[in-house]
């Protein structure tokens, strides 16, 4: 028994020591790209390695939340990947902890100007992230079989929804819904909030949740469920996704990451802007953010040139367009935006159109506190246990409290 153990130990040590090769440059990238997008990144990286034989690029996937925590832990401990990729809101946290490099000190202005300004993330005077896609925003998808002309205003949405929501096989249960979406998550509530003229915070990061706009938006969403009854009683992300894939939903509010799945499921769908709110005449503005690359502070001076070269490749128009071809993402490089691929695809054009009325997602760390404050009361309103007025007030109080706690 003991001998076996010792043998195993030595085998282990051997294996561990074997995996190092001193002559090549190792660059590690951490990302949270969903499946589909990942393969594009990996083949781009493979191509790069063929052209640069002395560089080994290791690409590791981590789920978004985990990526953030893991990066924080490793970078603060002096380690971590060389390049980290993710949505723009992680920058706020990384900046406070001082674990990402200001990119305007590394790349010159002419390079930076090649990008559409909406694809760059400037925060507190520094460029922290260069995006390879502008996206992460919600839009309205509709099943073309069920809806010929998508709604432009909320009242149209309600009437179309009512027409579609029905019990088809007569068993007393509704088989088809007008609208489905992950309505319990605050991020998915934002379009309605903005449609009524509200927003989550002011220019310095204080929450602005206790407003009439919030109250009206809360009431409206609840009415969709309880009064007009065009959404299911219980609907989280996976339920909405499944219903739309099964063709049992007329409309769906979701984002660009999901299009690949619906194409694969064979749903004949279109994309359009989330409707205007009749009362205010405003378009619903979802939050718009980029997903992009940042560089770790811990990167060695000697390695930097290689990291820079890889970085430039990753955000190049060619690689961006590969993503667009496969997934319909909106590129950030000016050249890529001009290309036929982008201009000729109706889904991408629809997505761009939605983005143009969207509003930039704040990257300050306080946003997390605001989400956490909104969530319980938002869900309580939907559950019918408190009124919208009370919810708005309580959300505001809780947000202030949580931000205080976070910043002490």
């Amino acid at each position, binding site marked *: 028994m003991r001998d076996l153990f010792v043998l195993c130990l030595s085998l282990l040590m051997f294996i561990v020591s074997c995996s190092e090769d001193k002559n090549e440059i190792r660059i590690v990238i951490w990302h949270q790209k969903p499946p*589909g997008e990942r393969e594009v990144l990996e083949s781009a990286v493979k191509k790069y390695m063929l052209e640069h034989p002395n560089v080994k690029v290791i690409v590791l996937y981590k789920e978004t939340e*985990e990526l953030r925590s893991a990066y924080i*832990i490793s970078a603060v401990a002096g380690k971590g990947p060389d390049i980290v990729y993710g949505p723009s809101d992680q920058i706020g946290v990384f900046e406070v902890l001082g674990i990402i490099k200001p990119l305007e000190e590394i790349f010159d202005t002419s390079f930076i100007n090649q990008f559409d300004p909406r694809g760059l993330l400037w925060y507190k005077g520094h460029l922290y992230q260069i995006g390879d896609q502008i996206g992460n925003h919600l839009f309205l998808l509709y099943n073309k079989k069920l809806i010929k002309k998508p709604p432009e205003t909320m009242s149209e949405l309600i009437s179309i929804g009512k027409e579609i929501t029905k019990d088809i096989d007569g068993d007393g249960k509704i088989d088809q819904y007008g609208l489905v979406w992950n309505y319990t998550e605050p991020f998915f509530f934002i379009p309605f909030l903005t449609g009524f003229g509200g927003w989550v915070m002011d220019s310095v990061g204080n929450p602005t949740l206790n407003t009439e706009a919030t109250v009206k938006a809360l009431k409206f969403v609840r009415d969709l469920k309880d009064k007009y009854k065009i959404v299911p009683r219980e609907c989280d992300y996976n339920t909405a996704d499944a219903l739309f894939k099964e063709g049992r939903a007329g409309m769906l509010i979701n984002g660009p990451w999901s299009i690949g799945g619906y194409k694969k499921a064979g749903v004949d769908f279109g994309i359009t802007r989330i409707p205007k709110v009749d009362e205010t005449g405003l378009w619903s503005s979802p939050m718009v953010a980029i997903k992009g690359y940042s560089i770790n502070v811990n990167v060695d001076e000697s390695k930097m040139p290689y990291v820079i070269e890889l970085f430039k490749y990753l955000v190049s128009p060619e690689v961006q367009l590969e993503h667009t071809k496969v997934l319909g993402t909106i590129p950030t490089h000016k050249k890529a935006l001009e290309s036929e691929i982008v201009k000729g695809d109706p889904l991408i054009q629809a997505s761009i159109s939605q983005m143009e009325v969207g509003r930039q997602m704040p990257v300050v760390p306080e946003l997390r506190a605001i989400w956490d404050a909104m969530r319980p009361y938002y869900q309580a309103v939907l559950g019918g246990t408190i009124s919208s007025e009370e919810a708005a007030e309580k959300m505001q109080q809780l947000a202030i409290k949580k931000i205080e706690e976070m910043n002490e």
Partner: protein
Amino acid sequence: MNEKVKKILIDFSAYLFLIIFTTLTVYPVLNVISISLRPADKLLSTSLSIIPDGASLNSYISLFTQTPFLRWLFNSTFVSVVVMITGVTLASTAGYALSRFKFFGKKAVMIGILITQMFPATMLLLPLYIMLIKLKLLNSYLGVIIVYTSTALPFCVWQMKGYYDTIPVSLEEAARIDGCNQFQAFYKVVFPLALPALVITALFSFMSSWAEYVVAAQILQEPELYTLAIGLKQFESSMATQWGLYAAGSLVVSIPAVLLFLFLSRYLISGLTLGSVKG
């Protein structure tokens, strides 16, 4: 006549209970199977049928041909088997010492072992990470094995001790009179009689490493070293999980665990125990 009827009734109700309970237990598993057969990656379905419309084995095929599943399988097997062997070795000996001997600090050790389990694991991750960096155990099998063994041992040591406690010391005394020393008495007499507990220790050590995710993800940083749990997580993405692959992968991951159990359960109730040793 009454005795026979009574017996049949008891057996019948036992079967009935087993069948009902097993069905309840297995139903969610059938659901997982449906997810793995369902095309288009849907976690939910509005229909309750176990075999979904358009069922296909695509997920399973992709699992083996398009993902490094076999690599993950090898890594997990290696790690879990080593933990299993280490666990059994260390627990069987430590449990014996705690069962047979009184010594200074014994109660403290026993309670101390339990105490190591009480701290919420989530907060231990950050310092663990720092510690492993300093010891250069990051990104290695050894790091993972050590942490897993330390998590599995407390239960195993206590378990072995408890089981040894049910074996009367008189058996070892008889052996010593016959000329054995302490170690031989342990190895030849007591150890074989503790087989059911050893099985539980082995099974537990294996299971607590086999599908563990959090620690593995923290320590292993290279795709070549990924275990099954990390591999499975790759299919997951906060809003775009490949449910088909994920479910198929989870089911395939369970198979070795079930096989191990099947294999070991023979020894669990082998009857080669004190129960059948007379006087």
